[in-house]
């Protein structure tokens, strides 16, 4: 399905959404994926002091899709992620998760609960906590205060954490404070935390920055294996990595979509070469 | 396990260290000085500490009390009211002082009061206050409202005072101004002043912008009757108030201001030229001319120079300092009369004590109510920061700690009752 087709299928906001900011707890699994689309962005504009970081951006991601986003600095990639995760409210436009969840009306934790996980450009982990605790905190569970007070880690959860530790190859440093990890290890840990969260959609902002070539390739393999089960949106500059992922590529420029297609097509696009690749 | 033992050892050592009473030599009598040397009240109280030290040194130089030297114990309650109580307890139980001279604000007195009552010790309180209190363990050497506020208002209503018909009661928002103004309102009413002719205004602590209030006073005074301002503005706020007053061109000849908290010490921090003619009511002024005062001011000036007090060359004396001086001397006389520093004996001996004070009058400690009989002076500010006495009572006035202008006080006994 092309983006235009997807946009046509865009749900028109129902009249029963909760008021913005209301602490509505979104139950995971509630996401309506009937049209095979997990994320719609429609005509989103965000401006900072008159500067348009996003300019009528429209984008859609299918269920199970692995999408790469590329674009020069200032193209609006991170701002787009901020909009999806509720950190920034768009000046205009719509953002839907599945058919029914209006992302512009939810707060960050609610969006996380709905099933969107995000990895930051700069790896952000809890540096005072051990690697194990980082994963434990991220684990999919009831995250309200009352439950946290009386929470006990059961065996199943422990096993799951151990599995993830192995997957991200941090099992040997499970008890080390995360602040002591190398940059690459932190990237892995953050990915691991994302996996513990069991999101439907993963937003990954430059996930392989600071990784060795070997690690990069492993990451690519991991992502490819995740696709299908999860939907992924990867922002990356590393073209080799993007190529390895092999998904559809969207090029952002000055806050809107410049081109879309597989990597080869995009790289051949004259406009893309002009603004980005050709420099 | 070792930790527990160590902990206990430390605790015991601590208890031993704190608990041991300082075994002083037998030929001294310890007296406590409880004035804030830091914090907001240091501005006023430091001078009282110096006066107390000076008086004690003077007494010691003249043979001490019953042949024993007085040994001052100084503590700093740091303008912190709970700390006042703690320090008072420390002075009495740990240092075993015979008497404490101290406190300035009412709240500090209220804070230490239970301690003095509990431990049956003596406090000499040297500052004018709102009254409504009478305690066996306290001697009040400052003025009660009838020894300061009411004579001042009477003066304002007299011919020389300008025959004021309208009054602005201006104060900082706390107990002393509120109570004083309540008494004054009742008093003014008894003199036939209508409520419409009284304006009451309060400012928060530390208020420093008096523009609006001065404008209000100007407006109020433009209603066709001679207006006077009675100020119970506290401490630091006086300087901005008077500066604003001067700049707004509100002169003493038109709208006089009489203040109850502004004395020589406070005027040191103000440029007095614009204030000439503003009034203050006290029981003592530095400018009084009599042998006792000459000796007192000379002694303090020399003390300031000798002890290198800051700005010693411009050292001044004021009413609470005189009250401190009088209090210490009266206590000395009472101890000598009682031949003991025992609290109850000294209290008994205090009644009717007299002392020729720097105010030029012989002051008497009331036999019943623990307040001094004091003369009242009204002074006008002069250009040099001193006061020119323009009016005074014929003689000392008996204090009425229970003001007759407060409902229900008529039933109260004007004498101390031993606390239960």
């Amino acid at each position, binding site marked *: 399905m092309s983006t235009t087709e997807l946009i046509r299928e865009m749900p028109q906001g129902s009249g029963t959404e909760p008021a913005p900011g209301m602490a509505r707890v979104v139950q995971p699994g509630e996401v309506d994926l009937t049209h095979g689309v997990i994320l719609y962005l429609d005509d989103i504009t965000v401006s900072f002091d008159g*500067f348009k970081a996003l300019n009528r951006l429209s984008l859609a991601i299918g269920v199970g899709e692995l999408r790469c986003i590329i674009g020069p*600095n*200032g193209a609006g990639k*991170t701002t787009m992620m901020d909009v999806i995760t509720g950190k920034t409210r768009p000046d205009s436009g719509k953002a839907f998760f599945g058919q029914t969840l209006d992302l512009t009306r939810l*707060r*960050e*934790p609610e*969006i996380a609960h709905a099933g969107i*996980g995000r990895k*930051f450009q700069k790896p*952000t*982990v*809890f540096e*005072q*906590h051990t690697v194990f605790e980082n994963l*434990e*905190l*991220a684990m999919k569970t009831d*995250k309200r205060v009352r439950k946290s*007070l*009386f*929470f006990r880690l059961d065996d199943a959860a422990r096993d799951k954490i151990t599995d993830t530790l192995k997957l991200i190859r941090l099992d040997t440093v499970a008890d080390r*404070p995360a602040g002591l990890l190398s940059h690459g290890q932190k990237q892995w840990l953050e990915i691991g*935390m994302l996996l513990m*969260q069991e999101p439907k959609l993963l937003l990954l902002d430059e996930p392989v920055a600071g990784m060795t070539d070997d690690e990069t390739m492993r990451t690519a393999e991991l992502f490819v294996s995740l696709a299908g089960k999860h939907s992924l949106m990867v922002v990356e500059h590393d073209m080799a990595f993007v190529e390895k992922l092999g998904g559809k590529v969207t090029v952002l420029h000055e806050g809107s979509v410049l081109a879309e297609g597989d990597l080869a097509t995009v790289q051949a696009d004259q406009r893309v070469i002009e603004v980005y690749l050709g420099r | *396990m070792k*930790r527990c033992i160590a*902990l*206990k050892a430390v*605790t015991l050592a601590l*208890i*031993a260290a*704190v*608990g*041991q009473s300082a075994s002083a030599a037998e030929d001294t009598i310890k007296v406590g000085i409880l004035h804030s040397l830091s914090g907001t009240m240091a501005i006023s109280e430091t001078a009282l500490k110096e006066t107390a030290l000076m008086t004690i040194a003077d007494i010691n130089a003249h043979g001490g009390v019953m042949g024993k030297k007085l040994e001052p114990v100084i503590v700093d*309650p*740091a303008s912190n*009211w*709970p700390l006042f109580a*703690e320090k008072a307890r*420390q002075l009495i*139980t740990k240092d075993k002082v015979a008497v404490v001279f101290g406190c300035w*604000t009412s*709240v500090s007195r*209220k*804070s230490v*009061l239970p301690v003095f009552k509990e431990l049956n010790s003596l406090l000499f309180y040297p500052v004018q206050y709102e009254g409504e209190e*009478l305690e066996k363990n306290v001697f009040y050497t400052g003025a009660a409202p009838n020894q300061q506020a009411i004579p001042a208002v009477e003066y304002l209503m007299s011919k020389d005072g300008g025959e004021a018909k309208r009054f602005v009661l201006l104060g900082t*928002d*706390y*107990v002393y101004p*509120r*109570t004083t103004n*309540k008494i004054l309102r009742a008093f003014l009413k008894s003199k036939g002043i209508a409520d419409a002719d009284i304006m009451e205004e*309060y400012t*928060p602590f530390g208020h420093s912008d008096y523009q609006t209030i001065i404008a209000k006073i100007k407006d109020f005074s433009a209603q066709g009757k001679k207006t006077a301002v009675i100020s119970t503005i506290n401490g630091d706020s006086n300087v901005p108030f008077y500066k604003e007053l001067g700049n707004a061109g509100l002169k003493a000849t038109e709208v006089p201001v009489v203040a109850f908290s502004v004395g020589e010490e406070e005027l040191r921090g103000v440029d007095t030229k614009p204030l000439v003619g503003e009034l203050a009511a006290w029981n003592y002024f530095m400018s009084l001319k009599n042998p006792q005062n000459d000796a007192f001011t000379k002694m303090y000036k020399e003390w300031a120079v000798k002890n290198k007090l800051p700005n010693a060359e411009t050292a001044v004396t004021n009413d609470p300092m005189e009250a401190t001086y009088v209090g210490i001397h009266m206590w000395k006389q009472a101890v000598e009369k009682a031949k003991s520093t025992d609290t109850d004996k000294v209290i008994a001996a205090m009644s009717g004590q007299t002392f020729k004070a720097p105010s030029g009058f012989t002051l008497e400690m009331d036999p019943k109510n623990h307040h001094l009989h004091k003369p009242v002076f009204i002074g006008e500010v002069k250009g040099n920061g001193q006061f020119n006495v323009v009016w005074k009572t014929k003689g000392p006035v008996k204090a009425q700690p229970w003001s007759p202008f*407060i*409902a*229900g006080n008529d039933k*109260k006994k004007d004498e101390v009752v031993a606390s239960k």
Partner: protein
Amino acid sequence: MRTSFTERALVTLSPGGWRALAAFLAVMLMGVPLLHLAVPAGSPLHVSDYVVTLTGKVLCYALVAVAMDLVWGYAGILSLGHGLFFALGGYAFGMYLMRQIGTDGSYHSTLPDFMVFLDWKTLPWYWQGSDHFWWAAFLVLAVPALVAFVFGYFAFQSRIKGVYFSIITQALTYAAMLLFFRNETGFGGNNGFTDFKRILGYSVTAPETRVVLLGVTSLALAGTLVLARWLVTSRFGRVLAAVRDAESRAMFIGYNPLWYKLFIWTLSAALCGIAGALYVPQVGIINPSEMSAAASIEIAVWVAVGGRGSLIGAIVGAIAVNLAKSWFTVSFPQYWLFFLGFLFIAVTLFLPEGLVGLWRRVQAHWAKRGEAMEWPPAPLEETAKPVASTVVPPPVPVVPLTEERPA
């Protein structure tokens, strides 16, 4: 793997920690009463009433310090308004104590003295019921908690944090101080509440009452310590620290920081209320100056001196600073502010982890020299994590140079 609640409560402190706590309680509940009541006043072993009240006061401060550490050390919220909650608790209990005076005041009226001479004929509505101990006890917890909850809800909801939060808490306590200074507010104005006579029918000045109050304070402190310890070692504590260290990460994995912060903030306020309520009968006065900005800053200073992010540190800091203050004000009344000032500078510069950090360093040093076999024993907080100073969120950046910001 299921463990009972008691079992879990037990592991919140290490065995050494429990022993130390027991020793502390033994001294406070048995040692001090014995030495104060049974040993004659002349004996060098006698604990004077001065020491008893001073200890009680300092323990109240220690309780406040623990409450402060919970929000500052563990949740990264520096409050410059904790004095307000402390004072509110104190006032709530002070109302009860004022009513207990009954007709023994100087006006022999059922109304508190200050109301009599201000011509108030009846009790204001908010004084209703204050003569009942349990209602007062409820207010002690409820008033600070409610104020904290409302204020915290809006502040955290608006994502106010760091220095901004500190400044508005300061404004809050300052506004409250001005309000309480007014006579018309109905809390005795500047003079506050004082001259209490009895509590639950017992004389407040009786040595037995003092000892009991000290015992209750010790128990409250011990209880708070265990509760706080349990909180910070639970998953809740880990989430709190996660929010402190990387709030957006915590949000993006599904934690709503609002409720976490609000919970600890409200709890901390209620604990301060308890401390205030215990403080008032022991020092004998409550007045609005407890709400001054400086008083609240001092609370933060105790925690910093002791060691932020360590519960024992908070207690040690409160005790150390207040004893130093008591000592300096007697020995060097003119210069104690210099000492205090230098102390704070030295601690922040050289002991970023406070006295507890110093202790750990000394310990590590000894351990290296192989002398750790005998002494010192393990610290009370075995698993306490070092709180590096870099944890503090950086100040609000001025003009961030981001890739998406036009030049």
